[in-house]
């Protein structure tokens, strides 16, 4: 597959012969029709709405079809503060999405809790429970930043392999596509993070 020499390919293209591979064609189709799940959590959602509207127009990148059902969505844009009361529902929605599925953590709150980090009721980052593909900092990030993240995700999808040992995670049968939903505890969510997903690097002091 895709073992064709780049130079040969451009030469062939000049002669009117278009050569592609299954993987390229498949990824080209996938990356240009990413359907986000339609939900917003806080002020970042307003920027997400602006991104979808005519001025910034996420439709240029094939992401305009916001689906109100997780079954039809490819991308979850976690746009806003994830409260601890909301976190189990976010994980549940993620579990209900069909593979391949991607997550963008939009804004400071979805990344780390942001300005509400010290609050008793705010989750310190959605990456504690589900794997995140692209993080966008900002409070809130401008629509351009969300478009940048979207294009970054497209690049990531384009590079995914369909075969071989380094193939994409969603094609590996041993890779989980569902993650345990945290329970409401007496003092906090239980567990406070999914250690299989949340493995922060050791901080050098």
């Amino acid at each position, binding site marked *: 597959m895709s073992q064709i020499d780049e130079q040969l390919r451009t030469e062939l293209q000049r002669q009117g012969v278009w050569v592609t591979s299954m993987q390229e064609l498949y990824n080209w189709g996938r990356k240009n029709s990413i359907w986000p799940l339609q939900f917003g959590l806080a002020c970042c959602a307003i920027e997400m709405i602006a991104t979808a509207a005519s001025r910034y127009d996420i439709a240029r990148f094939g992401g305009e079809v916001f689906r109100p059902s997780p079954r039809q969505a490819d991308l979850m844009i976690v746009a806003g503060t994830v409260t601890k*009361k909301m976190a189990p529902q976010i994980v549940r929605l993620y579990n209900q999405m069909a593979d391949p599925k991607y997550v963008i953590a939009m804004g400071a709150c979805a990344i780390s809790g942001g300005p509400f980090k010290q609050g008793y009721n705010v989750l*310190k980052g959605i990456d504690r429970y589900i794997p995140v593909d692209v993080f966008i900092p900002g409070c809130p990030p401008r629509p351009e930043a969300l478009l940048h993240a979207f294009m970054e995700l497209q690049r990531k999808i384009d590079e995914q392999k369909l075969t071989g040992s380094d193939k994409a995670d969603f094609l590996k049968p041993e890779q989980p596509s569902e993650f345990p939903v945290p329970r*409401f505890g007496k003092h*906090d969510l239980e567990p406070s993070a999914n250690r299989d997903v949340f493995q922060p690097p050791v901080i050098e002091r």
Partner: protein
Amino acid sequence: MEHRGIARLRSGDVLLVMESLEQIKSRIEAAVPGAKIEIVQNGSPSQQHSLLIDNEHAVAIARFLRVDPTLCLDFCSNVTGVDWLDRLVKKAMKVKKLVEGQEKEIVETTEEKIPGYLEAVYHLYSMIHKHGPVIIRMRTSDRADHTRLPSLTSIWRSAEFQEREIFDLYGIRFEGHPDLRRILMWDEFEDYPMRKDYREPDDYEWEPTPHDEVLEKAKQHHAPRPELDGAEQISTTQ
């Protein structure tokens, strides 16, 4: 002491100036027999003094405030809670004492411990007379076991969710409330997060740039480094 009167703002606009709190207090005491009311002074620039009402007559007092034609406080705009911890109040007293055979005036300071309590504060306005706020407070007898107050939802329907919120965050149980459940936190939650002695759960294990309070909390997750931490306490002279 201000008197009830009529102030003209613009031609045609008539504003009824509200009675003073002292007048309201004496009228409540006349209308609700046995009611114990205290005026709580507010020394801040806002000068928003309030009425501390007793829990037994609270509903009757609230009903009076609402239906009385000159007050007609028909709009409860805000209900909130306050947590007061145990506190020591120092009082300076001048006492005459015999010191070295002579009688002298000595200032003695005595400390009085005021036990903590929880408080519910209601801000009331009148839509008809366009005046307010009249602020009323109720206090529980302590912070631990006796945290019950009468609900005023039957008088002002808008207090329903706000009393639920106070129950959720401060733990005041409103008796007579139609639907007293937690409103913001989940039902399984057991703490009252707005109380001053609340300790939040510790999930500060991943702090790339900690500072101040977060640094103190993150430190509990740091691996011990005896060769570096505490090095400043090692003295060179043996």
